[in-house]
């Protein structure tokens, strides 16, 4: 049996403690534990872990159908340690509404979280999401955005970025991956005049946690879009999930912003912007762009222009030292001070 020495009380006479015991003594709330069937290096599993950790125990989760639901709850197993309900693909917003209404009616003090992927949010679940926001249920809706239908075999969604290859937007002689733009779900959601809608990334867990806490405090519907790499669908090494997510942010392709009542109130400045090719080259879904053809060259320029557009639109270019920017937001310190 694996043991560690002097790792915390209570310890056995021989000074060891089992990992099982240690697991129960972890300093952070564990709403989502291991033993789930996510792929190695899954960004969504990481994101869900971070969100539930930050949200704490007084929650109940409504989970749309998708990878997260499937890999976390193959009966009899469940990776959840918070009350959790899965119903269907497109109704996370609605069952979360019902749960919240029930708690309100019964006087139960628990925040409802709704979890869905980009398919369940941008596409099929958009209607119930919109309804929920319009009714302003006290729900934090978290979209784990991995930019395609991963659970069903990497089909394109309206979140799939331009030029990314998926099984239904493959690259070929005539086409360089997806022909359409990524839907700007955050602006669409924020247009409901909701109190808080923000983006976050698994590459910046401190920022993500802050946003979860912020959203939890707000009475009413809040929305968090968490960029969550999929090693399988994006075709990168699982070890690189955070690195790829970080590049998405530092290239400007995934702006990390906060909108309140539809207005921009916060953004993570990029201290040293990276060229988009650094991000694209790290992923197989864009490999067709790295050939020496006029179309591929144009596409790379196009994607860089999209990043530049984001930089301009949200004034993402940093202006020197800023503790909240891409270089400062998740700086480590000895002793894990950033979590204090």
């Amino acid at each position, binding site marked *: 049996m694996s043991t560690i020495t002097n790792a915390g009380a209570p310890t056995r006479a021989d000074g060891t403690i089992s990992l099982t015991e240690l697991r129960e003594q972890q300093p952070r709330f564990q709403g989502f534990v291991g033993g789930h069937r996510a792929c190695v290096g899954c960004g969504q599993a990481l994101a869900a872990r971070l969100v539930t950790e930050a949200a704490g125990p007084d929650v109940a989760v409504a989970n749309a159908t998708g990878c997260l639901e499937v890999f976390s709850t193959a009966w009899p*197993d469940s990776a959840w340690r918070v009350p959790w309900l899965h119903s269907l693909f497109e109704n996370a917003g609605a069952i979360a509404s019902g749960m919240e209404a029930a708690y309100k009616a019964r006087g139960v003090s628990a925040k409802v979280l709704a979890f869905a992927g980009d398919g369940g949010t941008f596409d099929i679940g958009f209607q119930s999401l919109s309804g929920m926001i319009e009714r302003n249920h006290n729900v934090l809706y978290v979209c784990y955005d991995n930019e395609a239908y991963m659970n069903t075999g990497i089909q394109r969604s309206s979140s799939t970025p331009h030029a990314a290859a998926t099984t239904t937007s493959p690259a070929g002689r005539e086409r360089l991956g997806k022909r359409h733009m990524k839907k700007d779900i955050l602006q669409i959601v924020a247009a409901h005049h909701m109190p808080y809608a923000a983006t976050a990334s698994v590459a910046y867990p401190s920022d993500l946690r802050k946003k979860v806490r912020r959203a939890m405090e707000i009475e009413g519907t809040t929305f968090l879009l968490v960029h969550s790499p999929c090693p399988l669908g994006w075709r990168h090494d699982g*070890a690189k999930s*955070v690195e790829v997510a970080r590049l998405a942010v530092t290239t400007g392709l995934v702006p990390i912003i906060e909108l309140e009542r539809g207005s921009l109130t916060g953004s993570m400045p990029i201290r040293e912007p990276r060229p988009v090719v650094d991000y694209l080259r790290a992923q197989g879904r864009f490999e067709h762009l790295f050939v020496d053809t006029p179309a591929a060259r144009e596409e790379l320029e196009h994607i860089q222009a999209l990043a530049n557009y984001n930089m301009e639109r949200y004034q993402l270019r940093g202006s020197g030292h800023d503790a909240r920017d891409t270089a400062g937001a998740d700086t480590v310190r000895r002793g894990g001070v950033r979590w204090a």
Partner: protein
Amino acid sequence: MKQYPRGGIAEPGASLDYHTGSWRLQRPVHVHQAAPCHHACPAGEDAQAYLALVEQGRMQAAWESLVTANPLPAITGRVCPHPCESACNRGQYDEAVSIHGIERFLGDEAIRQGWAYPVAPPPADAPVVAVVGAGPAGLSCAWHLLRAGLRVDVFEAESEPGGICATAIPGYRLPPDTVALECGRLMALDGIEFRPGQRLGRDIQLHELRQQYAAVFLGVGAQQARPWSIDGVTPGDLHDGLALLQEWKRVGQIPVPERVAVVGGGNTAVDLCRVFKRAGAKRVMLVTHSGMPGPGVPDPMRALPRELAQAQEEGVEVLTHRGVRRLVLRGEKAVGIETVHMKKLPDAEGRLRRVAFEGTESLLHVDMIVPATGQDVDGRGFEELLKGSAALAIAADGAIGTPGVYAGGDVTGNAGTVTAAVGQGRRAAAAIVRSLQREAGIDWTDAAPVAFAALNTEYYEPMRRHHGAVLPPAEREGELEVEQGFDPAAAQAEAGRCLSCGNCMACDNCYTLCPDTAVLKTRDLAEDGSHYVFDYEYCKGCGLCANECPTGYIQMVVEP
């Protein structure tokens, strides 16, 4: 038999029954690698360890950690060329951590606050070791012997401990009080007996020491002027550089020429130039074969770059890549030197050789020329050990081949830095302790340090290096110390710049970023010195933790 419940509900966290560790092809392991600073320090200081404590504001604990390797931080913090900082990985990121500044801060604080050296008095019947020479090597050796529970008698020819630090290094960069206090505190420790005015071969004899003591450590230094001439010619009033520095320290004045050339590229040469300036010389020129220190320079001067820069600020002219071709004498008195441009170039076999370039000869009018090209060992009292060599040859542990006798410091012809002497004293102490069948308790790391490429620098924020105040050149007079130290806030902030290379700094990245909650945080240190354990029952071997470990402490190895 497991039974399917109504509605297919699952119990919370039941997935922990499913052990995804079986998927794993590779596993993360903790590998503690030496930090480059630790590896590079001739005294074996683990700077990372005390920087961490300084960052927490635990200054005394930091000093106690530091002196487990080096008992003279107030001295070395000022005079060491700090190879630790040259090696510091942070230098490749923005600027190296000011390790020397923090070292000095801790040494000064210990003196100021009177922190007690962390050592227990040795038992009365403990073996006694003789240390000859109370310079950095001897003091270090004595200290480490004391830490190992031995008693030490320290013999010193001069009246005060400190060796060259007390006698030759100018006060503007190493104040005499600092030397006296730091060395004096050490010599006052219970278990160390300081015997001043005892010169080997005159007052004490080696064979007697060997008989009376459990072991003998020779740290007598090298303070004899090295013979110097140009084609056999020397001026009649030839002064040796080190001797002039000693004179300046002892009596506060030296002969002051109007124009002087100092030959050499080490700190003695630079010190002497600056002393000449302070003493009133109009024109002071440093003539050296070497080049200015800097990146890519194949033959840099050994002087500290910052000392050199300050010398130039003070008006010292530095003539690099210059050799003295000829002395111009009027009678026995030098009136000038002929110099020639030279450079180290590879010869046919690829070895670097100095080549003088014909046609570049030029004449410098000087009133005095002072060689500062190094000193030799004064072998009086241990001639039989030198066997005609210029220095004592020692093994890595300080043994010289004569039973019970060890040596360290300048007497061994070492690199000539105070810190190297401290390190040699420490290694010799360890060897002595072992020879007495005792537990040395002195760690030494020779493992390869963690490379910059192994770090994930995304998690560090650029931060300018802190600098202590520097006296403006116009105000640098006499022995006024030029460089001021850190205040506690600056020391703490600067310590926070340490990257913790190759070590676990408890940043929580692995713990935070594991998608499988397979990294568990320990309350105290885990067995391997980290703050985390891998739960291989669940770890799928994705490698995220290793990729995101800022310090290179986590490595992926093929699953056994």
